[in-house]
């Protein structure tokens, strides 16, 4: 029998312990995607390997990866073979988080000689060798160094043989070693705090409390699912892909308090690095479900149990080795939209319209005019889909939780100048609630000494974010390279539209033009409050022409709503549109 008061204290403490573990890692990590994006996760497991608590960090992509990874570690090193001071490591994409850059470190925690818990974390390293971060690889082996499950520390001493190989294979050996030490130290922080709590609460084992937390989480998740009407809800989306469009098909089956999510019918694996391992598919699927149904239920073994997620082996959402996987986020980050499109048929007020979906990531490598090397990675986001009762957020990451990088930091860290960073007028999908706007981002290598390398990770340049419940789609993304007009050179303005996922070399004077996609609208645009349309026009989120065309709202010369003209226009628009949604 669990003492309810001990459970209260234990649970509060455990949340605080994993948050501390995450904070410790974020503070001391080197990788730029940790710096600007919080691209890490931190977790506690019971001695059986059940995930019991996970810190909320910048990336949903690690949710289930962490939960699954521990089994794989225990297959290789059963608990009986682990000793105090051992630390385990891997970056096996299929066993943890889907690409080589994400390295997982797991530490068994001992109380005396008894194994009482595991702490684990994932961190996106600054470099892992192979090609610079891009979607271009045709095989896994091009994407960097593969670290199978092995020991990073053996009874407290670093595994120098492993570190030798690692340091020889990466571009920034000091930063990478520094990150691995930071990850190890973060698990130690978690373990130390847990042992203190066990001493204070007089616990010999955390298993009974873990069982209780897991059972309660499972119950809460089941209750949330049971509130969704039974049925099979299907959805299908198309994204640009690398060299050909990719279809994601999903069937969500709700039966009582359990849910199956199956991706049969999705495209086969790509021959480029945009493939997704099942762990990562599960992570973004879980995230989508949680946002819609159970934002307050914590991630742990219990909350995962009621949901089964499957995808046919070899499809792009359950790719097999040696499929390349470096840019798996491009596809994976569409899954919350896929799930919401299906679930929305059952719970329309709990989901949002499609948004820009995947982050637009830019990786730059090259040299300054004085021949110093530079390498820069930054993240940008288009518009979020409109929400029941609210407009979509403009240029805000979803489902990812990362940050953009300030223009001044980009310019201090690289020879590029940001020419423009401005919201894209009319990019938000019209609707009763408007989709969020994307933005223009224009860059030029004004202080670069020579052509530099650009690896883009852009999608939705052909497939817009669809509207929902009568809302219209957001604007598609734009990506082109422009050479500015030079006097006397008639060909100079000819612009290029390279593949938005292929690495290219860019001349210093060339403008990189990125127009990030907008989010889809929700509900009939004609039903939008004309005063809201007026405000959108005043703030140039929407042009006067589009206000008239899409919303049927006519403004007078003073910018106020011309109600009689608006009524006439909307009346004319409604008749032919009958039954059109």
């Amino acid at each position, binding site marked *: 029998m669990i003492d309810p008061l001990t459970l209260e204290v234990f649970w509060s403490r455990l949340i605080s312990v994993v948050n501390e573990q995450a904070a410790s890692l974020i503070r001391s990590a080197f990788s730029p995607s940790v710096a600007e994006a919080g691209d890490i996760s931190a977790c506690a497991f019971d001695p059986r390997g059940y995930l019991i608590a996970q810190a909320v960090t910048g990336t949903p992509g690690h949710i289930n990866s962490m939960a699954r990874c521990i089994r794989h570690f225990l297959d290789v090193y059963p608990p009986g073979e682990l000793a105090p001071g051992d630390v385990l490591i891997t970056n096996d994409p299929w066993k943890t988080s889907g690409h080589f850059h994400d390295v997982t470190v797991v530490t068994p925690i001992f109380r005396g000689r008894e194994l009482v818990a595991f702490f684990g974390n994932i961190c996106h390293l600054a470099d892992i060798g192979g090609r610079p971060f891009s979607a271009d690889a045709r095989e896994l082996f091009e994407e960097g160094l593969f670290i199978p499950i092995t020991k990073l520390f053996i009874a407290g001493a670093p595994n120098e043989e492993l570190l030798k190989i690692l340091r020889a294979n990466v571009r920034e050996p000091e930063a990478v070693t520094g990150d691995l030490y930071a990850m190890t130290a973060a698990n130690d922080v978690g373990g130390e705090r847990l042992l203190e709590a066990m001493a204070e609460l007089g616990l010999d084992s955390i298993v009974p409390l873990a069982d209780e937390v897991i059972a309660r989480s499972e119950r809460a998740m089941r209750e949330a699912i049971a509130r969704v009407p039974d049925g099979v809800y299907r959805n299908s989306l198309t994204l640009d892909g690398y060299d050909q469009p990719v279809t994601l098909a999903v069937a969500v089956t709700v039966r009582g308090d359990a849910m199956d999510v199956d991706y049969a019918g999705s495209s086969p694996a790509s021959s480029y690095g945009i493939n997704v391992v099942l762990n990562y598919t599960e992570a973004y699927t879980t995230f989508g479900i949680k946002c819609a149904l159970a934002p307050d239920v914590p991630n742990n073994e219990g909350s995962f149990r009621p949901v089964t997620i499957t995808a046919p082996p070899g499809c792009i959402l359950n790719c097999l080795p040696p499929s390349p996987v470096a840019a798996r986020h491009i596809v994976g980050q569409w899954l919350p939209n896929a799930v919401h499109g299906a679930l929305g048929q059952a719970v329309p007020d709990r989901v949002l319209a499609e948004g820009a979906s995947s982050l637009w990531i830019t990786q730059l490598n090259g040299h300054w005019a004085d021949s110093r090397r530079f390498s820069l990675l930054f993240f940008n986001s288009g518009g979020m889909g409109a929400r029941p009762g609210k407009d979509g*957020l*403009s240029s805000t990451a979803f489902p990812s*939780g990362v940050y953009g990088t300030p223009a001044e930091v980009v310019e201090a860290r690289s020879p590029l100048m940001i*020419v423009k960073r401005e919201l894209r007028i009319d990019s938000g999908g019209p609707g009763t609630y408007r989709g969020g706007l994307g*933005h223009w981002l224009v860059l030029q290598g004004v202080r670069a000494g020579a052509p530099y390398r650009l690896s883009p990770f852009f999608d939705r340049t052909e497939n817009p974010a669809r509207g929902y419940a009568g809302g219209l789609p957001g604007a598609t993304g734009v990506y082109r390279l422009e050479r500015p007009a030079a006097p006397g050179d008639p060909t100079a303005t000819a612009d290029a539209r390279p593949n938005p996922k292929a690495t290219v070399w860019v001349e210093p004077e060339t403008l990189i033009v990125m127009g990030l996609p907008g989010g889809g609208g929700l509900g009939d645009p004609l039903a939008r409050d004309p005063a809201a349309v007026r405000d959108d026009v005043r703030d140039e989120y929407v042009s006067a022409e589009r206000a008239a065309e899409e919303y049927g709202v006519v403004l007078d010369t003073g910018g106020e709503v011309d109600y009689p003209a608006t009524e006439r226009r909307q009346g004319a628009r409604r008749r032919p549109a009958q039954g059109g949604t």
Partner: protein
Amino acid sequence: MGERLRAGVDVGGTFTDVLVVDDRSGAFWVGKTLTTPDDPSVGVRAGLAEVLALAESQLAGRRPAEGGPDERGGSDGGTPQRAPAGNALAALETVIHGTTLVTNALLERKGDRTALVTTRGFRDAVEIAREHRYDMYDIFLDLPRPIAPRHLRFEVDERMLADGTVHRAVDGAAVRALAGRLREAGVAAVAVCFLHSYRNPAHERQVGAILTGELPGVRLSLSCDVSGEIREYERTSTTLANVYVQRITEQYLDRIQEELAGLGSPAALLVMLSSGGLATVETARRFPVRLIESGPAAGALAAAHAGRRCGRPDLLSFDMGGTTAKACIIEGGQPLVADELEVDRVYRFKRGSGLPIRAPAIDLIEIGAGGGSIARVDALGLVKVGPDSAGARPGPACYGQGGDAPTVTDADLLLGYLDAGFFLGGRMRLDAGAAERAVAEGIARPLNLGVVEAAWAIHQVVNEHMAGAARMHAVERGKDLRALPLFAFGGAGPVHVYRVATILGVGEILCPFAAGVGSTVGFLAAPLAFDFVRSDYTLLDRADWAAVDARYAEMEDEGRRLLLTAGVAPEDVTVRRTADMRLFGQAHQIAVPIPQGRLRPEHGAVVLASFEMVYRSLYKRTPPGVPIEAISWRAVVSGPSPALDLRDADSPEGPGPGWPGPPAVAGASGAIKGERPVYAPETGGFTPTPVYDRYRLRPGALFTGPAVVEERESTVVVGPGATAHIDAFRNLVIIRPAGAARARGPAPEVEDRGAPAGSGAASSLEP
């Protein structure tokens, strides 16, 4: 010689607190008047007048009979004639003021119609912000609204590069045309924020000069003046907030000065900054955004001051009130200072949900955990407390004002920590029946617990929450809280501190006497100080030390000029230099001390060594071979810290009207005013526990827990087995049983004294 008086005035939501101190004798007087929200300066004047009159009468009354045994040594003993009327008023040299005006104006969006002028292509930087959702799972969240809407954001075709070179010059004619558009838009305030102005402010200055000429009467702030730091979103947000509240701040400060003049006082007005420094009215008028946290800053300064006096320069100040709890690390007698804060949070306590303000501020963590915080059962069937609060109205169920949600105060009452008949010194009766019903309905029944168990669960969950938040705060700063005594104040702080200390593993707890005057003490303990910062990303081994030296000279000259203008003697000026540095590629920077005086290339090695020392103290080891990067250079230019030495507790006439109750008694047992059952898990439930009257406990009094110590504003709960004594400064010092070995400093060796064990045992340390 006569008195030298200084006054601290804190305008709070309900009360205006005034503390007047005579720096020559340490005598002080306190007063409390109702805040006058429509024009707070009226309340300030009334409060000051009241306390000065009190000071006047006491000074006049005691002059002939001067001469306590250990204080006021001959300060004015040689002038036994009656003081002339208005003597106290004439002796008042400075009035130090803290205000929530700026915060409120931002929260309520009551500032001026404000325009933003940016570099071409960047008018949306302030709206695109960091492209981040501050809550992972809430798809319905809202983002903070920029102060200037998009139609009031304008661009100038100019461009500076990151190294400070001009890429495109300013076209003066275009700026004059822009001035016309601003005039047409009817704006009363303009913020100018160009890219890389932290590196080269020339364009901002040029445009600022033109706009000043073209737009008389319009308030103007340049980002290079308000916040000279890299990161355009944060700098723009700060500059906008500054100019947005400038006019109302000016008007407010003018009114206070008028009221002071009306009172006939010659005193100079100084204003408390968020950083814990004081500034002249002139500075406050230019940079109102630096006043945002002036109230909380004063609380932390008061804790730091008390810690310095009693030999605890390092501690954690813990202030728990009705709706929130705040914690702040005090190190070396000074509160830690952060470079940024947030205002107008959409989610009240969620980082990232407010407008960022880049300005030095006392580094507090504030969470939604207070006496009024509401408890409920969450989706997992576990107790959750806060962040929503029952506030003052309806308040906790036990207030009997119609609230029926169970709160922390209700739980504290049911556990015997509070006395229904002595809340606020008996001014308010608590309804234990209502508390019991609320806790039973809201928590006990759904969880199938007894009411007492449910109350204990609420108490413990809120304690865990506060301890967890404090520990996160410490981890993020590389500090270990276990080494820091807890300094507890605020209405609920002393009630909860014992359990919070237990969770944190802290051995020693200090509860100051008469915490009611806490903030105003902070005002009087602060020095005049000005903060400066210049950003410039540079690798340490490539640093241009002549340029760094020039930056410091520029910042420090300005600081000296401001201090001299405010009347500080040149020899009293001190400068503290630090730089924000990190290993290249790291996310977070650390503050590294920079040598004084002229900087030369050979200082590179000194700075490198300082960096490594600070880094290792935080992270144990420095990874080899990683270059070090400097981000920003900072200087704090300060006047002298006032030698505030309040002679409160044992002064023969007491400290003024804030002094209730009978005279203190020597031993502890004489201070016991009763006994009641109090819950402690160590004893398995309720134990009859002695209740001490704080006002009758004299320095040296010693007793052991369990015990409850009551004063008007709060109640200290001491757990079983702990030892408590009153120190020379009338702080109540608690040593936890398990933590006694960890306690540091000049705490009395209580075990050696053979303090009797068992509840309520009392003795005295005095011979």
